[in-house]
């Protein structure tokens, strides 16, 4: 543990860490046949930090377990989940009770899609949420102010979720987080399917939140969107973080990137080489002894097939790879 803290302290640190996660792992207990149980590991050895005033993007492909990370932080995992490791919020251990107390107040989730809104509840009621009667007037005023800021017309208050367009829904979901005066905001895939204009707008909301002193964790598969607004990018693959890079590292052919997977991801973008590497992310039940990227790696050595490399500091970022120094 001590060793990892040291590693982190080397990364540029403008502000204090609001959330620290150390060596988190998450597994699900499943019944296979009869009463036989198996444990399916979905996140392993994950360490990360979210800082005030910063946007940390967690970028990974679908099925890598990134939404589960959000659910783990908020304490909304299903009952068969087994969570291990350390989580600290404002230098206090974040227990399940603490999560329940803080979520909706200091911790907020901006979910991915419309399906997270109650289809039978009017928009303003959903944004305001459950408040004591005496505070209702105050919250209503605040909600109006936020709606004006996000260019949502007064009619929207009385609408139901199905009457909103994709962009409007996104703004409503953002409002729910803003009204809660949260300090840590976790946005889970907030961007897919938005056109350029709405995308820029949505991203600017997150930048605003960070500039106002929030810590924002942006979970996405869209590396381009992440690069536009984030400060740091954590590359998530098969349940763990392979690299934490600074935004400036993503340029040219990716020679400043530390992990071969990050480089492949960068070169696969249509505006770069649009080049695919072979293979696919290993599934949770395909257990490997060595590096999780071994099968697809262009730089693998004999050594990589044994033992998963630890996170180490390289050039102001973190990487899990034997072949960089």
């Amino acid at each position, binding site marked *: 543990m001590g060793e990892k803290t040291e590693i982190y302290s080397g990364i540029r640190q403008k502000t204090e860490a609001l959330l620290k996660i150390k060596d988190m792992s998450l597994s699900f207990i499943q019944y296979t046949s009869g009463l036989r149980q198996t444990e399916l590991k979905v996140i392993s050895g994950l360490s990360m930090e979210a800082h005030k005033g910063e946007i940390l993007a967690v*970028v*990974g*492909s*679908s*099925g*890598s377990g990134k939404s589960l990370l959000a659910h783990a932080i908020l304490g909304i995992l299903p009952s068969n989940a087994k969570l291990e490791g350390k989580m600290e919020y404002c230098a206090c251990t974040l227990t399940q009770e603490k999560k329940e107390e803080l979520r909706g107040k200091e911790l907020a989730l901006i979910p991915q899609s419309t399906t997270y809104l109650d289809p039978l509840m009017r928009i303003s009621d959903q944004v305001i949420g459950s408040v004591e009667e005496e505070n209702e007037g105050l919250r209503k005023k605040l909600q109006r102010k936020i709606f004006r800021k996000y260019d949502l017309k007064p009619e929207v208050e009385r609408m139901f979720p199905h009457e909103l*367009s*994709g*962009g409007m829904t996104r703004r409503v979901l953002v409002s729910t987080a803003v009204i809660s005066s949260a300090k840590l905001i976790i946005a889970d895939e907030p961007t*897919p*399917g*938005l*056109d*350029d*204009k*709405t*995308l820029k707008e949505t991203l600017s909301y997150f930048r605003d939140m960070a500039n106002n002193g929030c810590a924002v964790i942006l979970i996405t*598969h869209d*590396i381009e969107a992440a690069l536009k607004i984030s400060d740091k990018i954590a590359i998530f693959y098969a349940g763990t973080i392979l690299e934490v890079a600074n935004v400036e590292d993503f340029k040219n052919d990716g020679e400043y990137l530390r992990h071969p997977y990050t480089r*492949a*991801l*960068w070169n*696969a*973008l*249509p*505006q770069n080489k*649009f*080049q*695919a*590497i*072979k*293979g*696919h*992310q290993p599934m949770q039940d395909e257990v490997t002894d060595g590096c999780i990227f071994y099968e697809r790696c262009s730089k693998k050595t004999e050594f990589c097939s044994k033992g998963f490399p630890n996170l180490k500091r390289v050039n102001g970022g973190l990487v899990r790879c034997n072949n960089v120094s």
Partner: protein
Amino acid sequence: MYLKGENISFGYKKDNLILKDVDIALESGEVLGLMGDSGSGKSTLCKILSGYVPNYQGTISIDGKKISSKGYNPVQLIFQHPEKAVNPKWKMKDILNEGYLVPQTILDSFGIKKSWLNRWPNELSGGELQRFALARALSPNTKFLIADEITTMVDAITQAQIWDIVLDIVEKLNIGVLVVSHDKTLINKLCYDVISLADINKV
């Protein structure tokens, strides 16, 4: 062979048309891009072209002939969310072979592994499901493919993989593809021609 939509008009409400007098043509072997803002009716147009929406105005035809509502539709639509396009209670091998018996060569080119066939849809990721959705739609009877934001939900590597395979197969089978996306750079990389829905929609 041409897929043509002529004077297509449609609205979900009577007094509120989304599409008005839209003309669109797609040739065999052509890869055509379609762009437009969210809510502008791209997906609706895709559904109309591939026969999912019946009560539109105008005509859809292949080489002047109307497409029969019976039998295999030569215009196949691929959705943005593959998990919504598969039956959650069927195993992947049944989903895959629902339309035709998908040959091993196509499975190999999509990198679909044997062990995936015995899984349920919720045991695969979006990128893997999308490979299944494409493999089952690329039968010899398919003449046109409507790809509605098919790689929006996957990571960049999977996106490059999927398009690499699809472009290769459609070229071999001489299939015309309509690529719908918000991503200008992706469209420019894939398509010879790009149209903007706003330019052809007279709403």
